[in-house]
């Protein structure tokens, strides 16, 4: 069996006396489409923070392609191929869309530390930014500061920054959270068009979206993996129906 792209072994995280994530085992293969669902407060975002390196785990280990990255810092993990979006939009609000993306592109190309202006380099960055804005249909807005744009567009920029890093694992934390209903489709259309070889872990409350997107679904309840399987298995799981699907789908 090939080594999984990402593997979590018994990963836990406590805040004080509260254990938010408990002994989670999880693995992602190349090109996998995985959804992470669960009630509010189940520890989904914390789990993503642990994988991306934003938070250190209190226990357990994380491997990427067999390499232990548990102690690796967030910025290094990005270089290793983990990209993410944030549940609450985290952008460079006063900068234009193109500047937001250019920052990520420059980091990805490894040229962001260069001290001299370089026209050839700048046009290389701009070309890549143009590719991303075209892919996400953002061309009409590129020169506008992010903060004046509709929230749906801001969420697309959030996604664009993550894609600019050309990750092998993409962690999407409720990419359509807070977006008006009419624009939600645009975001999931973009998610559907993500490169095939990219492994995606998606947190999402909308069950229809989850079932359409995911090949496998992991259900997290109170920090523990409650169930894992194909969308079919999960929708037939009696406990999950009672615990999660019976609830209002949006928290």
């Amino acid at each position, binding site marked *: 069996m090939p080594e999984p792209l990402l593997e979590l072994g018994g990963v836990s995280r406590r805040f004080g006396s509260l254990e938010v994530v408990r002994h989670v085992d999880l693995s992602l293969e190349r090109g996998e489409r995985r959804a992470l669902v669960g009630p509010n407060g189940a520890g989904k975002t914390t789990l993503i923070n642990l994988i991306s390196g934003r938070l250190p785990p209190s226990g357990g280990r994380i491997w990427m392609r067999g390499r232990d990255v548990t102690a690796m810092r*967030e*910025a290094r993990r*990005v*270089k290793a191929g983990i990209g993410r979006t*944030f549940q609450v939009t985290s952008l460079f609000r006063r*900068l234009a869309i193109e500047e937001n993306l250019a*920052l990520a592109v420059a*980091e990805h190309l490894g040229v*962001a*530390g260069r001290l001299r202006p370089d026209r050839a380099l700048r046009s290389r960055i701009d070309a890549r930014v143009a590719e991303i804005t075209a892919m996400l249909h953002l061309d009409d807005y590129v020169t506008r500061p992010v903060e004046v744009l509709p929230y749906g567009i801001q969420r697309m920029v959030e996604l664009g920054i993550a894609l600019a890093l050309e990750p092998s694992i993409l962690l999407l934390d409720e990419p359509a959270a807070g977006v008006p209903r009419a624009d939600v489709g645009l975001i999931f259309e973009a998610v559907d068009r993500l490169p095939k070889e990219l492994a995606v872990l998606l947190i999402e409350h909308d069950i229809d979206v989850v079932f359409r997107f995911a090949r496998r679904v992991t259900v997290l309840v109170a920090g523990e993996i409650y169930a894992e399987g194909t969308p079919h298995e999960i929708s037939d799981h009696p406990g999950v129906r009672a615990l999660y699907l019976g609830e209002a789908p949006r928290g």
Partner: protein
Amino acid sequence: MISTRALDGLVLAALAAFPMVAPGYLDLGTRMAILALCALSLDLLVGYCGLVTLGHAAFFGVGAYAAGIFAVRAWAEPLAGLVVGGLAAALLGLVAGSVLLRSRRLTLIMLSLATVLVVQEAANRAAWLTGGADGLQGIVMGPVAGAFPFDLSGRVSYTYAALVLAVSFLVFCAVIDSTFGRSLVGIRENEGRMHAIGAPVDVRLRAAFVISAALAGVAGALQAQVAEFVALNAVGVEFSGEILIMLILGGAGRRYGALVGAPLYVFMQDYLAREDPTYWHLWLGLMLLAIVFLAPGGLTAWTSGLARRMRRAHA
């Protein structure tokens, strides 16, 4: 719209034209150039990294002392002195940066303040080297580049300071226009997000600290050379505050802010002190208040806002 390049050229032209426009004010012009350089170096931290510090006089002062002591004890060549002053300050920037950058906001301000006090007290105690409270005396500078001795008219001093400022400004522009400079702005706008796009934030900020400190050190060295004296208050908290005021006056993070703010501050100070030697501090304070109220982002923010409105009115 006027291009950035044209405005950069205008700045250099203004520096060159000053002696012709105001031949009687060369000493004042020299002071303006030196303080503009110091404010410019601070802008890299305050305006571009978003790190407010009150410790900038430490770098200026160390540069001044290093260049002064170098001239007294080793070599009186001014250009070599500039390099020594810049390097000494960069070294302090490297050390101070690695300590100070563990904190942000108020804690950073407090720590930077403490740095100035430590450096000032060190300079005070090491009187055998620095002259202590009497200041560093006995500096006799050689001619600039072996050809241009400092004269009483102040023409050489001004030209020298203006050239150093011009070169430093071009260095500053290169830095802020580079991908490195853009990433500093990214850190200022959203430090957490920079981590999440893989940026080594600490390394970037430390590098900015070193560059900023080096430029401030060069300004200090200039000051020591043209005055042939270093006073203990070159490393003072009060001076740190003044540099910050000059920058805010012109507009932080706006390319030309320091170049507008510092000369204006020096001019107001000089003018008011002559008009009203008793109460000039009061008038200076009132004028600063007025400017801050009328142009909250600094004068350069106000002028570019005005230009934008005029363009819109024309369109």
